[in-house]
Each structure stands twice: as C-alpha cells, then as structure tokens.
C-alpha cells in the first residue's frame, strides 16, 4: 500500500481502509473545513509512532510551486509515494516539559515503525496562497521520508520509498491493487473503484479513521478526549498500524503524561458505542502552554501520517492552527466553541456516566453536615442556562439542540481565580490554590454586611453574613498583616464564584430560565465553588433557580469536537 506524502499540509486527508494490504485508495478532498463524513474514508488505523526515537528528518528545503503539486490526481501522472514514519535514530531534543518527557522513556521500546502506505491525493486548488515555506516543508517531509527507503517497520511491512511529490510518478505499492478513491467535499468518488467489502461497510457507516480525538484548546487548559475502540477484530488488530496501536496503548495505559498531562481516569466512559464502534472514552488534559510540546510530539510521531482529522475547538484551535500545520504537518479542523460545548453536553448527558447520572445538584449546600450531592435527571433540558467557567466565563441560553445564544460572558473566571491566587499566595497549581482555599477563612479578608451594620441590613433585606466588599478588609494595613495565604486564596475563590453566580442569576432572570448548568474546569475538584454557587443561586432567587453540575465539567467542548468528527448530531 502506498500513499503520497502530505503534499500540501492544508489538505484534509484520510487514509484508505487497511483491511487488505492490496487496497489502495485515493482520496481527494477540497477545502479547509473538515470533510463531511461522506468524504471521509472508512476508518482505518493509521500509523503513528509514539516512540521518541526519531530523528528530525533531514529536510530538503525546497519550494514547490503550483505545478509541483501536480494536477488533480484523476489523471494518472502522479505516483503514490510511500509514507512512513518512525525512522529510528536518536531522540530529538524536546521543546517542552512533561508531556513529551514522559513518553521519552517509552520511546525506545515502541521503536520506529512504518506507516501503511496510502494513496493520498490532495487538491491544492485554492490553497496555493499558502506560504511557500509551508509548501516547502510539506514537500521536504515527503522527501525526507522518501530518503529512508525500505526501512522496515517492526511488523516487517513492506515499505515503499516515498517519492517526492514533484516527481510523483506512480509507483504502486507492491501487492496493492491500484485503487484510489477520489472524493471531493461533496463526496463524489472518482478513480479506481475496487473496494473491499469492509470498506464499503465502513463507508456506509461514514466513520472516519482512527484515532478519534476531540480537542478543545482553551486559554489555560487543553482538553483532549480519545475514543479507545474495544471491539477491534483480530483482523483489524493485525491491520492496525503500529503507531496507532502505540497511541492507544500509550494513552490508555497511562494516567499521567509527563508532568502536566493528566488523564481523568474517574471520568472514563466505558462501553460507549460511537459510530457503531464500541469502546471507552478517555479524558485527558494538559496546560495550554504545553501546546508546543504536544504539537512537536505530533510532528515527531509523524502524526500526520495517520491521516486522521484533528477536530479542535476553543480559541487555541485558531491560535495554534499554524503551528499544527507547519510543525506537526497537521491540518486542524476548527470548530465553533459554543456549538461543540452544547453538542458535548447534550451528548454526554444522554449517555450518562457509566450507568450513573451525569447531572447532579447539591442538597443543603450550605450545611457541611447535611450537604448531599444528588443525581439530577435532566429530562427536560430546555430552556437551559449554560455557564461555562473556563479561564473566562461564557453564558449561553439554550432553547433547543440547535437554538442557543450567547447571553454574555465575564472575564472574571477560573483564570482570574488562579491568576490572582498565584500573585497573592505564590501557589503554582490550581490544585494547590484550591487546597489553600479549603483551609482559609475568607471572612478575614472580606468585609461582610455584619462588619458594617453589626448584623443584617434590614432596610434592604441583606443578611449579615453576605459579603459587602470582597477584599474590603484589606484596605486596612493591620488586617492585611493578619491574613494568611490560605485566607486570601479562599477569599479569591469566594469572590470569583459569587460574582459568577450573581451574573448567572441575572442572566437567568433576564432570559426567564430557571435551570442553570455550571460547567468548565474551574469547577473541577472545586466543591467549595459548586456548593457556593448552589447556595447563592438558591438563596438569592428564593428557591426559583436551580444550580446543576455535570460530572465531566470541563470536557464538553472536546467531546463536541469529537462528535463533530464523527458527524454525530
């Protein structure tokens, strides 16, 4: 089997099915958006090495002009080139911390391997405006890959030299029936049509290739969901390229990736059926500032050879798009943040949480003795006020699955809490900040109603315990000197949380909605905030508003991105 190298990095590409080594497929996609499911080839395991033992491929900096990309591959004057990755060699120096550092150790065992050859064609039309540099790089990758001919993968799969795109005369993979499926965005095929049974089936199911990822690149955290198929047949297993396998193994057998990447094992959704495949959904997060390392890893592993589509949402999908492209040779499919969020929530709520309820609320939130977390059946989800607390806060009013609006947002969010905590206490992690907050006393920092009025302010019906001025006591030098870091962390948490609750309440009133779902990673392991939100909403609305929470609080955007990949409505 062969394929062409990533002739142009902008192409959305997918690989032919891998059920038989003799299968070639030509896929042709146009446009920068994610290919609709009809344009995706059936799923197959691409090849990606997760080993760290790759050298930077020798680069041939060569600009390739339009002609270099050749005419549309309907004609036969192109050559399938073999693509492989995992060329072995010394690990290259990593840019960044933990994520890659962790797999550094594993690198040697994973070894270099080859990707399956695939036919891949791109249609460069309309994309030639991209910088030459990128053209050059894309081409260089191909060249360099081609430069290491016949390096055998561990499976001993036959490797074909990768041809330079510029001279892409067709060199069919040995044993491969020349077959190519060319599709444009509209899903029309052309070219050879010898198709295997499974492929037909796959196509029918409109499944994209594995691996299935959904990525949400936020301001602070990257959320990654990964679907681990558990119904892999023996045949499939055999076909599965090593790199894909290693991704699977790497992600599912670890709970931490380097010092900053973490898999939230407790959130794993088991025996999930997605697109006709059964498997587990994994939830992984790492800081956005490690994004370069992540991309670098993708590059090092030649992730691009898997021809998977990376569906990504969040601001980072835009910010890092170029990096993905130029460094990782990966084309991101950028998705709208809010669309993904809502899709994700509705989906996750519908599948539940391994038999338990996804949604919950707090009973007696103010009473630490009696406070109970209870499941909530979100059977009538609409209308719903959705408060997503990430670095900042977005508030959406959701009226139906497709009808929602962004009501407002505030910049006082999780990033503010953590940022202020860092400045005030010198803490370095969110967990640390929360841990400090749990031991602090905010009433030393905040000025309460009773500090001013000696009790309730009856004229306005304000209880004495209400905060009159956040950090109000800190106007006094003596009191500044008397507070601990824990108190400050607590006050910061209370301040931000109260404010979000207050804005959410006003939005709920304005939109005439009485159930408010709070999501986002600010709430992760943040029972203080959740209980406060629950209490505040209940108290100030006199029981009219209900604060709801969701187990997978921060991952909905990523889930939505995954669903978008799978075209699950």
């Amino acid at each position, binding site marked *: 089997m062969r394929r062409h190298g990533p002739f142009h990095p902008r192409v959305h590409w997918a690989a032919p099915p891998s059920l038989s080594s003799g299968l070639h497929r030509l896929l042709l996609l146009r446009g920068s958006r994610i290919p609709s499911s009809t344009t995706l080839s059936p799923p197959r395991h691409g090849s990606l090495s997760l080993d760290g033992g790759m050298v930077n491929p020798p680069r041939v900096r060569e600009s390739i002009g339009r002609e270099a990309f050749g005419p549309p591959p309907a004609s036969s004057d192109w050559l399938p080139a073999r693509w492989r990755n995992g060329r072995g060699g010394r690990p290259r120096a990593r840019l960044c911390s933990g994520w890659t550092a962790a797999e550094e150790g594993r690198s040697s065992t994973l070894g270099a391997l080859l990707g399956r050859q695939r036919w891949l064609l791109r249609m460069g039309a309309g994309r030639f405006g991209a910088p030459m540099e990128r053209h050059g790089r894309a081409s260089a990758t191909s060249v360099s890959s081609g430069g290491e001919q016949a390096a055998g993968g561990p499976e001993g799969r036959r490797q074909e030299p990768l041809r330079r795109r510029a001279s892409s005369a067709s060199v069919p993979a040995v044993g491969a029936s020349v077959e190519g499926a060319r599709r444009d965005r509209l899903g029309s095929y052309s070219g050879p049509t010898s198709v295997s049974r499974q492929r037909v089936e796959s196509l029918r199911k409109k499944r994209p290739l594995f691996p299935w990822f959904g990525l949400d690149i936020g301001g602070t955290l990257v959320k990654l969901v990964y679907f681990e198929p558990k119904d892999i047949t023996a045949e499939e297993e055999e076909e599965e390229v090593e790199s894909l396998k290693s991704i699977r193994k790497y992600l599912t057998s670890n709970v931490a990736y380097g010092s900053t990447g973490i898999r939230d094992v407790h959130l794993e959704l088991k025996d999930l059926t997605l697109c006709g495949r059964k498997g587990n959904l994994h939830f992984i997060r790492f800081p956005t500032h490690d994004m370069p390392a992540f991309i670098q890893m993708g590059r090092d592993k030649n992730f691009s050879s898997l021809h998977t589509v990376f569906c990504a949402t969040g601001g980072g999908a835009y*910010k890092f*798009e170029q990096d993905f492209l130029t460094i990782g040779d990966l084309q991101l499919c950028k998705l709208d943040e809010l669309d993904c969020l809502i899709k994700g929530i509705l989906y996750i709520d519908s599948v539940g949480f391994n038999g338990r309820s996804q949604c919950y609320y707090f009973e007696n939130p103010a009473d630490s003795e009696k406070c109970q977390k209870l499941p909530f059946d979100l059977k009538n989800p609409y209308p719903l006020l959705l408060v997503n607390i990430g*670095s900042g806060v977005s508030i959406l009013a959701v009226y139906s699955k497709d009808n929602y609006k962004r009501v407002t947002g505030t910049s006082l969010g999780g990033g503010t809490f953590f940022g202020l905590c860092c400045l005030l206490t010198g803490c370095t992690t969110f967990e640390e900040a929360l841990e400090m907050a749990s031991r602090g006393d905010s009433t030393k920092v905040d000025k309460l*109603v009773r500090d001013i009025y000696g009790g309730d302010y009856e004229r306005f019906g304000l209880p004495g315990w209400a905060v*009159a001025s956040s950090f109000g006591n800190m106007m006094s030098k003596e009191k500044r000197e008397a507070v601990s870091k824990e108190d400050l962390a607590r006050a910061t948490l209370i301040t931000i949380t109260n404010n979000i609750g207050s804005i959410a309440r006003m939005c709920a009133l304005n939109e005439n909605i009485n159930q408010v779902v709070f999501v986002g990673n600010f709430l992760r392991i943040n029972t203080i905030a959740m209980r406060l939100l629950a209490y505040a909403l209940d108290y100030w609305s006199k029981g009219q508003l209900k604060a709801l929470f969701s187990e997978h609080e921060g991952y909905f955007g990523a889930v939505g991105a995954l669903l978008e990949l799978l075209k699950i409505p």
Partner: protein
Amino acid sequence: MRGAFSSQIYAHISPWLMSWPGTFKMAECGASGSGSSGDSLDKSITLPPDEIFRNLENAKRFAIDIGGSLTKLAYYSTVQHKVAKVRSFDHSGKDTERDHEPPYEISVQEEITARLHFIKFENTYIEACLDFIKDHLVNTETKVIQATGGGAYKFKDLIEEKLRLKVDKEDVMTCLIKGCNFVLKNIPHEAFVYQKDSDPEFRFQTNHPHIFPYLLVNIGSGVSIVKVETEDRFEWVGGSSIGGGTFWGLGALLTKTKKFDELLHLASRGQHSNVDMLVRDVYGGAHQTLGLSGNLIASSFGKSATADQEFSKEDMAKSLLHMISNDIGQLACLHARLHSLDRVYFGGFFIRGHPVTMRTITYSINFFSKGEVQALFLRHEGYLGAIGAFLKGAEQDNPNQYSWGENYAGSSGLMSTSPELGPAQRARSGTFDLLEMDRLERPLVNLPLLLDPPSYVPDTVDLTDDALARKYWLTCFEEALDGVVKRAVASQPDSVDAAERAEKFRQKYWNKLQTLRQQPFAYGTLTVRSLLDTREHCLNEFNFPDPYSKVKQRENGVALRCFPGVVRSLDTLGWEERQLALVKGLLAGNVFDWGAKAVSDVLESDPYFGFEEAKRKLQDNSGIDIILGVFPFVRELLLRGTEVILACNSGPALNDVTHSESLIVAERIAGMDPVVHSALREERLLLVQTGSSSPCLDLSRLDKGLAALVRERGADLVVIEGMGRAVHTNYHAALCCESLKLAVIKNAWLAERLGGRLFSVIFKYEVPAE
C-alpha cells in the same frame, strides 16, 4: 451571596481640589489622612468665617455624612441680604406728574432668604471644624444633628461632645437616594455623561422633567444597585461585593500601595494587557477573521497564572481597575435590562469624579449594553448623603415643596483639579468644597407649552462645545467687568463700603471666569446664560442686589412721561403702519440693555445717549423697553380683545424690569390709559412673575403660578422679547403654539455668527407644524 454598601468607606483620599475663588487651603496638617486607622485630628487650623461655614449665626438643622475619608456637613441658614424694593408713592393728590419726581421710590431693604450650605472636607479636619461650628453657632434651638455614612457612629461621641447636639443616625441608602432625587430635580446640568476622548469630556444632561424611574449604582466599598421609582419608593435590586473596597484592598495586596488615589494613579499608567489574557492571546491572530476584538479581555489576571513572570504594579492596578469596572458595568446593565431602564447614575467613592473610573465604567456600560444604557455621573455626587440626611431632618420644613437653585457664587465647581493629578502633592493640604443652594420663593416648573419638554434645551450656544465662542464670551465678560464694578459702586452712593465690596465682587467673578477658562464644565454646560447668572449671583453675594434700580427708576420716569404721546401718535397711524411701529417700538426698547457691551460702551461714554439715538439706529420712533415698547404692544393686543399675561422677572437682572416694577408701571399707565386700566380691572391683562432672576430664560424652570395661568387661560401665542431670552436662550425653543421671538442683536460677534450686523433685528415668528 453578596451585599453591597457604601456606608463603610474607608477612603482617606484628598478631596477634590477646588479652585473656586478664594479657595481656602488648610494650614499644613501633620496627618495626611490615615484612613481607617483613625484620623489624627488637627486642632491648630483656623477657619476664616466668611469663606467656609458661612452664615453659621443663623444656621439650623445640621446634618453630617461621614465617609471613610470625607465629611460632608449640611445646614440650613437664613441669609439676610439687601434687596431693592420698589414702592409707589402714596399719591394722595394728582401732583405726581411733576417732571423731576421719580415714578416710584426705591428702598433698600434687608430680605431674608433661605439657603442650604454643604461643605465637604477631609475627615482629618473634623474636630477643628466642629470646634469652629460650636464657636460660631448662635442659634441654640438646634438640638439634633442627622448623621449618616459609615463614619457616623465612629464620630458620634465627638459630635455630641463638641456640638452638644444629639446624633440621629439615618440610613445611608435612604439618604443617598433622597439626595439624588433632590439634585436631579433642582440642579440644572447635574447629570453628565463622561467621554474620555471627546471634547468636551463632560456632556451635561438637560434636566429631565420626569426623573423616575432610574437606577442608582453606588460604588462604595461594595456596590449597591437601587431602583428608584418615586420620591419615596425605591428598592435594592442587587449589588456586588466587588467594588471600591476590592480595588483598594486587593490593589493594596498586589501592589503594596496603600492609598486609593495612588492606586488609581498607578492604574492610569499601566498596561492591562500584560496581566490579562486577551482574546488575541487565546485566539492568536485569528480573532480578526472571526470578527472578535482581540483586545477584549478573555480572562482578567489570566496571564498572572504563570508565576515565573514579574508583573509591574501599574499593570496589575490597571488590570484590577478594568476587572472591577467591567464587572460593575455588566451587572448594572443586567439590572437595567431586567427593569427596562436606560439611565444609570453612578456614585460612590470609587467614582467621586475620578476620570479614570468614570472612563472605565462608561466603557463597560457601552460595551455590555451595546449603547442602550447610558452611564451618568453627578456633579454633586459627593453630597448626596449629606443632602439626603439634611432633608430627612428637615421634613417638617418640607424642603421638597420648594424649588432650589444652585448658587454659582457660593459653590465650588466640579473637579477644578482632577484627583489624579499629583495626589502626592495634595496629600498634606486640604481643601474645602462648597455647594450652596438658594431656596427659590416659588416652585419652578416647565412651561406647559413646550413642545417636547425632555428635549428642550434653553441655551442656543453650548460654550463647552464651542471653543471659539467660549473664548469670545469669556473675554467679553472679562472686559465688561470694569463697567459692572463701576455701575455697582455708583448704584450705592451712600454706602461706605461699596467700593470695597465691588472690588471683592470683581475678584470673585474674575476668578470664576478664570476657572471656567480652565474647566468650562465646572458648573455644568457653560453658556452665556450661566455666565450672566454667575455674575448676578456674585453681585448678590456682595450685596449689590440691583445695581440698575436707580437707572431703571429714572428711565421709567422718563418713559412714563412719554407714554401718552407715544400712544397718541400710534393711534393716528393706520392699522398696518401701527403694527410695524409697535414692533419697532418693542425692538428699540430692547436696545437699552446694560448687559450688552456695545450698548453699555455707548451709554457709559455718552450719558445723553438715549431714546433718540436708539430711535436713529432703527430710524423710527420707539419707546423704552417696557413702557414705550411693551405696553403699547400689549395695549394693541388688548384692543383687539386678546387677553395678555405679562410675565417679568421675579428678581432683578441688569436693567430688566422686575415683576414688582412692572406692577407699579402698569398702575401708572392704567392711570393714564383707560384701555390698560379696564384690562387690569377685568383681568384681561395679568401681570405675573417668571420665577427667574436672570437676563435669560429657562422655560423649563418657570414660576408655577405662571404655568398654571398659561394652562388655565389657554395661551396660544408666546412672545419672547430681548436678546437674553430670545437669542441666547430659546432661539431654537419649539413650542406647541405660535410664538414670536424678537430681539436686537447688540453684540457684533454674535451678529456675525448669525450672519447679520450689529443692531440687526431678529423677528422670528413660528407656527408649530401640524
């Protein structure tokens, strides 16, 4: 969850530095204000009695609002000042027509008027001030002082000990709202929008006839959001704990800067984008293609999570300021939307005239409401609590039944020095800020004939807006000052201190003019009217109540003697000629205006200039304003069966006829003319007062009696005469009935502006559109 209050304001900031004339600076005080830790009180200062705490002898009904840094004291006093009263001679015989006898007598009398005094000073001086009050307070009937503000209980004992008055604590928010209603109703141009990058930065609002409902957002240490529906009905609709205290407290922690003003100063120099995570930080460069503004803050302090970076104090303070202002603005918008309100007034120590915070709050309101909600600030925001507390204590005097007017002579302007201009320099000197309001004898209301009261703007030219015009008029008033001083001295030949007082007047008005050159917005929108009114207030201040009374007396005497002749000659004319002659008469009389420089120059240099000269200018026969201009015109209307309401100024302004003079004049004319005589008797001619003491006229502040009469009699034609009333003001006034505005342009500059020449005539007859 949150509550918010203004009462506990622990600010220890220098107050606004007011550069009102004769600004009294306290002697150097050791303490620069030590905030909540207890102010060290300075007893060594001496206060000049004629500058601050004036009229204490007659003071009663004290109220005090003690904030964290500033004390606001309010009291009510009666002010005795001289007024020129006119009185008819007792005409027992018919011998009053003798040539050299004046038509009526003028007597200068002492009149007692009511005034509200509000003084704002740093808490540091509270003890000295209380001592001063005790020493000068004569009135012993006062037993109670109303107190409000967070510091009220802290200083309770001190007040009770010093003044021997019982302290009655009043609710902070109630006082605030009462005060707010009061200033919105009584002080023109009280509210303004703040636009940082436009000129002028302050855009004052004309007084809305219906001030309710509105939203008041008080940003003290916390934030209170109150919906005010009527005078007595208001509701705390929400609040936020993130307020001025958060800025100060959190700011102090982050920057180790202890003072509020210094924090603001830091903030004004910082770059928040170094600390905040902006949309462009999250989206990279793609925000443009997505139609997002990259400069929006995605997460406040979002960048500070990377602990390995150092952040500057300035940047953190700026970020904090944005965070808090945006948050307050957002909540205010959400509440405004919920209650369908589009006007939100902001007050509290976080605002207190700070351009920095007014700017960020305004930005936030505009952003979150998409321009649908207006952020408004108040010129006398700092006094609201004291005013409210005073009103609560004075309920039995029913101050709300009266109209009050800001006394420009006795009040400090707005923000003569912006608080962030070098707070360090001001830390050791205190300044007193004053507001004085005169009780007007009668309540003022809208003219019922205004087409659209909310959009009525009396003034023709906004001098805050028009720099050229401002420069011209300020210079014009400066140049005219000598003449006014001379006239003032001359009007009181028997007074020994007239020259001295006149000199003080000159100083005061000169200083006001200089202040207005620097801060045109100091007293609201600067207009020719406000310049004229300020001059009248300053003249009154130094007991020159009516410098023109003698001149008017003499002129009226002459004119009365001419009246029969003028009427006779008019009666000989045909109808059409007569109408023209009447109008020319109205206009010619209008030339005699001592306020106009062109005219007063001629008059001062040539004492014999008079009627004939005016006549020549207009090339026709005419009479002096009221007697030879207005009365023949009125008589003509009466003859054709028209009922006439003749409204004159309540108080003196330049040589304009006052209501009381008009009564005497009418009486004398009635003695000569049967038409006027019978009209007066049959009440077809009614003489009323306008409620104004200005050469100009604000049709939204007219005597209630006049308004009632207009409505009752169904007036269908309004004639406005004179440059002040028909050109400087009301030139563009739209009425719902026919109107006639006439004047002679006695100012070359204005004539040129309007496209005419000096002594050109304005004769503007308007019929409202169907």
